[in-house]
């Protein structure tokens, strides 16, 4: 056979099938610590250790003070608490790991111990935990009790109208923070103004940032348009840090600068950045990240955007990569930092991996579950597609409902979204006009309001945005000018909302750890601390919040099902009549096949789940029986609505001993009088895909069985559709109507049917 191509397969074709799946677009890397591809452990990771003398830290994780690089030096100086360190470092790592998952050990005790632990120690402890334990510990250790979420709001054209509409939409869905960035750097000011205006529509309190160059970002913040920043990146090796064009001191200076301007700030770090930058020092991803996180606490920032971030895709190529991302997030919250927990840069083409990635965070909760969630379509995401984007937002809403988990979002009705988008577009247009920045036409506005993404808009292009942006910057327009413009043009509510947001700066309350604004109040780790100590404590979804979460659209009700049936009733009335003839007796004709119809068949229910009128079903069954020389008799069963028993009861009174049982929803069976109830001749259980021809062949086969033949069973082809998810809710409601009509011991009734109209 060798040498004969095509004669035998040299491959199991399933592999070819797998090759076609989106998963295979993901590339995976071999574990190779020497080249930086190791998630939890490398032989080059130092062993935890610390010695402290009167002058401060003498050695840390195997390095003496004279050899400290900048990161070591900063951590030793500002993170390590010499009062706690001897106690914390002496505790066995597995013991601390057990404390992390012990609901009886309060968060505060673990936070205290972390102040005395080195990066290698923190990494060693969390590496002891399984993925499930990491998720649980995360839930227990995160700083603020109430979970939240962050959105990306960007578009491929940097169109300010769409920016405003999408910001208002994100706010409506409940995001606590909105982050924007630009395709073209000089459009920063236009983006910032548009998002600030859009985010003030509907409610106030959504914090807003415009990710741009450090100096520019601070200037935009100073002009009052933004309320937080998170682009202050730190790295776990000195060389990466220097290539990132900063040092721990320059970043800490910047952190203080942001606070001095009343702007909330968090740093950014994530596994894989050192690997991508080529300076990983052969250390594991987790160890390097532990250094980044200790550094951030040392700098005195309130929080971190952490969990791979731009390095998430490379981290997810390594064994244990997703677990590592969770582990670094755990270190972040253990260090008492607000955690915007990644789940942003999309690390995979596989929707299954996407869903799996988000799940632990959805159920554990997080200060900001995504950092951020692409509230716009993937192609409009100027950061790059997020783990979840506008396309998948409803999937996420349903996951919240499935697990009764608060993912920070709330379903919004279509009409409300449209109203808010219209309002946002009108508001930003008014601001542009009032400040002499632009004159959006009605067509531009209308196209944006309805657009799902920028492909569908006829509005501003990047060059238009650049002109607007540069004008805002050159004329030194501030948030005060925008507030005035809004109020002057009748958008008082939006003007108020924007003013309230800027006013947060005066008290600085929102600079504290994990601060967001909910219902007009600053909520942070101070006044909403995570107090988890077991079931009944910590964050619980309240009754009111649950009501919001479960209110997704297009939910089926019994009333809706009955309403639909009443429409079909009229149509069926013109096609068929059912005449009750009294109790059905046993038949004698050896060719007789009895069709046992269910209690509601043609009485309250009039079409199958597949949408076939019940008259047509009966017509086909009868025609099929006749075609093979059988005689059909229709009997209504009143004691049961179950397919098997409908069929068996029909068979028992049929002259041939063969019967068909059929429910109104279209599920059917061919039965024989001597068989056990659930051991039938043929079952047609997939009513949604059962076509009229199948019913005809069902009738024919029944007649053949009646004559003692063994026909080829009818196979209803099915392609693996998840039929249960599409039909079960409706089917259960329909079936309940059937069972409601059954009466115990009720005798079968003879039914005389007459077809009306065409083909009667």
């Amino acid at each position, binding site marked *: 056979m060798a040498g004969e191509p095509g004669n035998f397969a040299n491959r199991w074709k399933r592999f070819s099938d797998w090759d076609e799946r989106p998963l295979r677009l993901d590339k995976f890397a071999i574990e190779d610590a020497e080249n930086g591809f190791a998630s939890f452990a490398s032989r080059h990771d130092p062993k935890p250790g610390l010695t402290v003398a009167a002058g401060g830290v003498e050695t840390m994780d195997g390095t003496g003070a004279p050899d400290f690089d900048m990161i070591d030096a900063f951590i030793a100086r500002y993170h390590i608490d010499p009062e706690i360190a001897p106690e914390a470092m002496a505790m066995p790592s597995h013991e601390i790991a057990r404390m992390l998952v012990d609901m009886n050990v309060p968060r505060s005790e673990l936070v205290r111990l972390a102040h005395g632990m080195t990066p290698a120690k923190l990494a060693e402890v969390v590496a002891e935990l399984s993925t499930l334990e990491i998720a649980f510990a995360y839930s227990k250790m995160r700083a603020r009790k109430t979970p939240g979420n962050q959105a990306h709001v960007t578009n491929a054209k940097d169109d300010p109208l769409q920016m405003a509409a999408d910001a208002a939409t994100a706010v409506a869905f409940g995001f606590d923070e909105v982050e924007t960035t630009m395709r073209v750097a000089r459009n920063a000011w236009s983006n910032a103004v548009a998002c600030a205006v859009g985010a003030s529509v509907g409610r106030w309190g959504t914090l807003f940032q415009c990710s741009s160059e450090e100096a520019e970002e601070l200037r935009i913040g100073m002009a*009052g348009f933004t309320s937080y920043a998170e682009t202050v990146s730190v790295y776990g090796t000195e060389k990466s840090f220097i290539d990132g064009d900063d040092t721990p001191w320059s970043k800490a200076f910047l952190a203080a600068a942001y606070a*001095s301007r009343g702007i909330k700030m968090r740093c950014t770090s994530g596994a894989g950045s050192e690997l991508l930058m080529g300076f990983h020092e052969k250390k594991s991803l987790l160890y390097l990240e532990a250094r980044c996180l200790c550094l951030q606490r040392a700098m005195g920032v309130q929080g971190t955007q952490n969990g791979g971030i731009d390095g998430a895709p490379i981290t997810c190529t390594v064994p244990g990569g997703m677990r590592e991302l969770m582990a670094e997030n755990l270190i972040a919250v253990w260090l008492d930092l607000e955690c915007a927990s990644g789940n942003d840069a999309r690390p995979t083409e596989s929707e299954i991996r996407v869903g799996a990635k988000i799940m632990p965070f959805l159920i554990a909760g997080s200060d900001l579950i995504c950092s951020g969630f692409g509230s716009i379509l993937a192609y409009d995401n100027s950061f790059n597609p997020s783990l979840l984007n506008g396309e998948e937002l409803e999937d996420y809403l349903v996951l919240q409902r499935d697990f009764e988990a608060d993912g920070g979002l709330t379903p919004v009705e279509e009409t409300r979204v449209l109203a808010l988008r219209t309002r946002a577009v009108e508001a930003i247009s008014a601001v542009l006009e009032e400040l002499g920045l632009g004159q959006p036409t009605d067509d531009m506005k209308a196209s944006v309001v309805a657009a799902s993404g920028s492909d569908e808009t006829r509005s501003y292009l990047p060059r238009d945005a650049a002109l607007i942006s540069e004008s805002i910057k050159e004329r030194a327009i501030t948030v005060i000018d925008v*507030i005035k413009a809004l109020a002057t043009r009748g958008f008082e509510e939006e003007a108020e909302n924007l003013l309230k947001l800027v006013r947060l700066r*005066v008290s600085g309350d929102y600079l504290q750890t994990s601060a967001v604004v909910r219902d007009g*109040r600053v909520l942070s780790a101070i006044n909403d601390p995570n107090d988890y100590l077991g079931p009944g404590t910590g964050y619980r979804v309240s009754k009111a919040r649950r009501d919001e979460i479960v209110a997704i659209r297009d939910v089926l009700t019994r009333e809706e099902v009955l309403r639909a049936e009443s429409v079909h009733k009229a149509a069926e009335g013109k096609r068929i009549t059912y005449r009750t003839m009294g109790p059905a007796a046993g038949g004698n004709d050896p060719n007789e096949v009895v069709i046992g119809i269910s209690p509601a068949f043609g009485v309250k229910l009039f079409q199958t789940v597949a949408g076939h009128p019940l008259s047509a079903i009966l017509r086909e069954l009868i025609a099929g029986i006749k075609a093979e020389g059988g005689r059909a008799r229709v009997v209504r069963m009143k004691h049961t609505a179950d397919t098997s028993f409908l069929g068996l009861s029909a068979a028992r009174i049929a002259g041939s001993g063969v019967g068909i049982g059929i429910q109104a929803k279209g599920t059917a069976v061919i039965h024989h009088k001597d068989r056990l109830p659930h051991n039938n001749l043929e079952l047609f259980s997939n009513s949604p895909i059962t076509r009229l021809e199948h019913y005809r062949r069902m009738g024919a086969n029944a007649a053949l069985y009646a004559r003692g033949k063994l026909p080829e069973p009818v196979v209803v082809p099915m392609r693996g559709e998840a039929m249960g998810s599409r039909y079960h809710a409706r089917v259960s409601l329909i079936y309940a109507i059937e069972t409601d009509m059954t009466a115990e011991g009720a005798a079968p009734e003879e039914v005389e049917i007459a077809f009306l109209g065409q083909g009667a």
Partner: protein
Amino acid sequence: MSEDRLTIGDYPLAEKRPEIVRGKRGKGLDEITLDAVLEDRVALEDLRITARALRQQAEIARAAGRETLAENFERAAELVEVPQDTIMRVYELLRPGRAQAKGALLAAATELREQHGANIMAAFVEEAAAVYERRGLFKKRF
């Protein structure tokens, strides 16, 4: 400050202690209204954080066990009155390779201390200068 040390019970200040929250020109939160903005009684200046507010938040952070966050707020308090250009200049100088020698950073520290009374921040910059010297950061990068 004459009042007792603030604790977490005073937080959020805007809600619990509005009487001690004042903008840069002394305006209270209830004076910062839309009408006041429209009548030009409130300007951007009134919406800036003050050194006092940052020190109050530092007290609260410290009471909540967040020493390093409190220290950041205290450093920030010193920068409130430092002009934006100066801040960006010192930040730039702290970036790797911008200062060609330790002296440039020490001069910036002196400026912060003497012209802006930013003593903590000055010491912080001096500390950076020492570490940069030891780690060889005073070299040309571009």
